[in-house]
């Protein structure tokens, strides 16, 4: 699965519900195919995506989805314990796992040697694995009511899509647009 295809599937399935996106190539690739007011891409803040999404899910009554990466999740791994403790039913965290820091010159991540899904399950989280776009789409589409927290670990190919432009957005504008798109804000 190419990351671009996984991102397209997530975007089409999540629609206009809030979507928090990890930094680097992931945010750039998604922005190259879809930009919605309900998207909150991080331009830096590696390691904090799932924690930020947890906060949004605790404050917003509707479904909230996070796109994290294996490297970013590993940088803030303590959030797995926090997710397990609070587990808002309206939150879905999708970890795109390519076993590398694709935005850091494609250096290997520790996820290449450890099983992130098993680690998350060890915290007591409800973990789903998927290996193709159809399965990912079905997993997300099967959660319209978002009645239980889930962490999805999706295996993707290493590397970055070529020719993707930089994401030079003003973070203050991104945040204001995102907040305004939430009914509760």
């Amino acid at each position, binding site marked *: 699965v190419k990351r671009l295809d996984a991102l397209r599937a997530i975007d089409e399935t999540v629609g206009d519900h809030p979507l928090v996106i990890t930094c680097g190539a992931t945010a750039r690739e998604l922005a190259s195919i879809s930009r919605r007011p309900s998207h909150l891409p991080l331009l830096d803040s590696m390691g904090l995506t799932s924690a930020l999404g*947890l906060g949004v899910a605790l*404050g917003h009554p509707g479904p909230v989805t996070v796109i994290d990466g294996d490297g970013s999740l590993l940088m803030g791994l303590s959030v797995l314990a926090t997710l397990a403790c*609070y587990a808002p039913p309206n939150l879905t965290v999708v970890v795109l796992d390519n076993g590398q820091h694709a935005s850091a010159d494609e250096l290997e991540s520790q996820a290449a040697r450890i099983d992130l899904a098993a680690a998350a399950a060890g915290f007591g989280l409800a973990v789903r694995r998927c290996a193709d776009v159809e399965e990912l789409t079905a997993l997300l589409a099967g959660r319209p009511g978002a009645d239980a927290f889930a962490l999805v670990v999706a295996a993707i190919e290493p590397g970055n899509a070529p020719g993707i432009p930089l994401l030079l957005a003003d973070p*203050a504008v991104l945040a204001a647009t995102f907040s305004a798109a939430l009914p509760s*804000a």
Partner: protein
Amino acid sequence: VPKPATPRLAAVADGLLDWGLETFVYVPSSHSAPVIRNLLAAGVRAVMANREDEAVAVASGLVLSGRRAAIVMQDNGFGNALTALTTLSLAYHVGLPIVANSRGGLGEYNAMIQSISARVPDLLAAAGVRVFGLGPSDPVPVWRRTVSSAAELAGMQRAPIVTLFDALHPALEVAP
């Protein structure tokens, strides 16, 4: 046995309640514990974080979703929190009140902690985060009003604002 909140520590919690706090995110600290317990007793929703940067991210998400959220922590955690405060809260204009007990000053019993805590106001100022301070010379009503006003200011200015309170100063025992 948990220590009851002193009037000044109770005022920190009351100041946040005056502001309309809906959820607080905290990183456990013995000197902030009375504040945390008072907020819990008041029925405020709490989220315990394991690290201060994680707390900043969770609280920022709450604020961006329209909630009145704040962080309760200890000042030696600002080293952990700096990247989150700058690249997330400051950059994304998140109005985030933070109350933190300060360490390393008079009455300190830990020989190491001053190496970070004494420098926290300068670190935060260098990062562009505004700081207000509360100590033994400030009466209880001033503590309460300062905390609520700083929280209000954070929301208005859409920025993280820190209130450092000194819960260790020996003069607190004789302060009116």
